[in-house]
């Protein structure tokens, strides 16, 4: 799911980099203010732990094995803000040291796996962690973190004009569902083992105000999508800019997308349907989770 450099079009990676910068700064400040003194060794150790855990294979049968991604587990143990910081740290090390994921694409990957992934991983726990549905909450968190991250990644690639024939989408969809289930399962297994060792290591789900968190997640996702769409729909503005500063060739823009003019037309013509599709998916997920949570809460109180 780590998108390398060279895949995303300039409007996409640039707008996501710009969106991720203030988000990461905010999250870092938030995490630091929560418990500055002993956070750093804990976050460092947990980051290294996730790296190491990713090296351990979970055989799922038929010769394949899955491994932990970690956003949901980190969120359960550290809370969403600190988990975002740790995931961002991991992504940066992966991009720089391991060349797994691009550097210009860091904004996109951070947004997908660190910001949205952690938020999606934590949300079910926040809703149902205190009730007897906690095992489901943990599993759902793991699964959602993978699905949301993957959906965002594919949307970004789609907006960049990367060819996505239907068979690929269907196959990828299936694979991501499987990966999500594996993540959910592993997160649950590790969560249970950890709880058995020491109950205090797992966060109390009631410590964070729900509405602001869900609202922020949804708002950030929507804003990013709109920003990406707006930028993609206006390549002509960028072209005239580059011509104005004397750098444009015949039909080459300074900020050429990897796939030239074909993609601009592609986006402009159907951007409304694309916007609806991409956004609808994400919003639907958030709404379903929230509605289900409310339904269960009402049943519990009845």
């Amino acid at each position, binding site marked *: 799911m780590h998108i390398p450099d*060279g895949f995303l079009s*300039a409007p996409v990676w640039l707008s996501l980099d710009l969106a991720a910068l203030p988000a990461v700064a905010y999250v870092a400040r938030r995490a630091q203010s929560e418990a500055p003194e002993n956070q750093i060794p804990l976050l460092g150790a947990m980051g290294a732990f996730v790296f190491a855990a990713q090296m351990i294979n979970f055989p799922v049968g038929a010769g394949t094995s899955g491994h932990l991604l970690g956003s949901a587990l980190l969120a359960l143990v550290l809370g969403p803000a600190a988990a975002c910081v740790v995931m961002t*740290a991991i992504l940066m*090390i992966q991009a720089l040291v391991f*060349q797994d994921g691009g550097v210009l694409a860091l904004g996109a990957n951070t947004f997908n796996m660190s910001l949205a992934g952690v938020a999606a991983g934590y949300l079910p726990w926040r809703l149902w962690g205190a009730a007897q549905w906690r095992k489901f909450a943990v599993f759902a968190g793991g699964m959602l973190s993978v699905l949301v991250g993957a959906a965002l990644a594919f949307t970004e690639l789609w907006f960049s004009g990367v060819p996505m024939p239907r068979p690929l989408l269907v196959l990828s969809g299936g694979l991501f569902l499987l990966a999500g289930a594996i993540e959910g399962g592993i997160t649950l297994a590790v969560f249970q083992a950890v709880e058995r060792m020491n109950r205090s290591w797992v966060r109390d789900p009631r410590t964070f105000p729900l509405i602001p968190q869900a609202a922020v997640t949804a708002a950030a996702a929507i804003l990013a999508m709109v920003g990406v769409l707006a930028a993609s729909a206006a390549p002509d503005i960028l072209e005239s800019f580059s011509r104005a500063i004397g750098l444009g060739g015949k039909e080459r823009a*300074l900020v050429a997308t990897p796939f030239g003019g074909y993609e601009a037309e592609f986006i402009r013509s159907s951007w409304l349907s694309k916007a609806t599709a991409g956004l609808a998916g994400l919003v639907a997920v958030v709404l379903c989770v929230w509605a289900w949570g409310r339904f269960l809460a009402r049943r519990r109180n009845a």
Partner: protein
Amino acid sequence: MHHFVVDHWSQSDSPLHRRDARAKLFVLVATLLAVATAPAQFQWTGVGLAAPILAGFLIARIPLGAALLRGLVVLPFTATFALISYVGGDVERAAALLWKSYLSGLAVLLAVSTTPFPHFLRAAEWWGTPSFLVTVIQFVYRYLFVISEQVQHMRMAAACRGSGGRGWLFQRDHVAAAAGAVSVLFSRSMARAEGIHRAMIARGFRGHILTLDSPRFGWLDVVFAVAAAGGLIALRIVLGRVS
């Protein structure tokens, strides 16, 4: 493992190693921008932009073959989409995906192989990355080495006890064993975090990690930053016009 090799390469000496990390980071971003915005044809642009990167490895005295091999890590993800483009009839797009992601990866590898990672992080901080995040990355990196050795030991120990069974059926025991391994790693990490914290307060830590001075930017670093970045962007523009 990859990070051990990159770390080893970053410890040697060469004209590139001696440049300030902030300059190298600047040049790296310029390179990535040049590659990302370049038009798609491989014949001129790809080869043209590859030349300075390969030259960089030679100047840095890093084994070129090994570096080129390590750059192939982008291949699995890229090849899938490249294949789809190729099958869909767009050879140019397929090639572009391949060479752009490969060259970008090589550029990053060159930058980190010629700079000790802590210096690279201080450069990132200087250029605007939040300090708290940078400190966390320092710690994750520091303990990455310790914990990856632990994982290697665990893997070896598990192999000695015959965990390599290839079953076609879902094996509950193996999953349980893997979950157990992960939870052991987890508790050791928690214990280590406590130990580090104790060591920090034992030497007067009060909440902010203070560091010694970073070296000053020399005139050679400025020349390098301007020349390399400027040269790459100029190259990109020239190649853009030619192709």
